[in-house]
């Protein structure tokens, strides 16, 4: 009987210490509406980029004509990455934006090397980027939900 009571106390001790220290549990970063909006803005730019490229005749999809947009979007993603990186408890979202940047740079390099872009691949990558941006924005939105007490 006595042992059972001790076990119960030991089981709830960490919780009690947490409460007495005035802390709350934290696994994810605070929600940031600005970052979520920025993510969606970049998503729009990227989708417009692919839409324009796909709508351009294949023989005219020269790297030079898309270079400025590649660089502009690359910078947008890099800044988004920095903004995510400097937030506490935000490693998972930062990892996601790292992949986004990696895939964007892959496309830029491939387009530059081939000086052309396949319509089939462009259509695939357009869909993949939308999936990535959805995942990142949804992840940010989850932080908002977790901060609301039910």
């Amino acid at each position, binding site marked *: 009987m006595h042992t059972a009571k001790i076990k119960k106390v030991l089981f709830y001790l960490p919780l009690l210490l947490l409460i007495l220290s005035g802390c709350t549990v934290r696994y994810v970063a605070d929600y940031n509406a600005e970052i979520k909006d920025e993510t969606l803005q970049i998503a729009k730019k990227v989708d417009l980029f692919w839409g324009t490229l796909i709508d351009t005749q294949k023989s005219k999809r020269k790297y030079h004509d898309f270079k400025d947009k590649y660089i502009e979007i690359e910078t947008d993603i890099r800044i988004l990455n920095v903004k995510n990186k400097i937030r506490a408890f935000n490693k998972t979202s930062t990892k996601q934006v790292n992949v986004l940047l990696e895939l964007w740079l892959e496309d830029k390099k491939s387009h530059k090397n081939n000086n052309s872009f396949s319509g*089939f691949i462009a259509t*695939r990558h357009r869909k993949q980027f939308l999936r990535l941006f959805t*995942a990142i924005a*949804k*992840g940010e939105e989850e932080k908002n939900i977790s901060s609301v007490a039910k």
Partner: protein
Amino acid sequence: MSLNIDLVLKDMGFAIIDSVKDDVVDIKNYTETILKNNKESLKELAEAWIANEIPDLIFDAEVERERKVVETELLTIKLMKQAAAQQAANSAINIFMKAVKAAV
């Protein structure tokens, strides 16, 4: 006032269950969306490869790329679980705090 720890613990348990029940559905739905997207993407790729529309090198690169996309989508599931756990734990702590304060 006295503190009825058994009752408080029971309430904390209810708070945790109540807190995570919607999250479980959301996580299930989003996981299904990820799997559906992945299936469609790989199907499209396989069909193009079988029809010789894309070379082996492109096929391999696209499979690897799709793996990265799915991994990144699954990181959102990780975030959803962490956020749900955070909310559940804090809801339980709030119940405990209210009970302790009321007992003082």
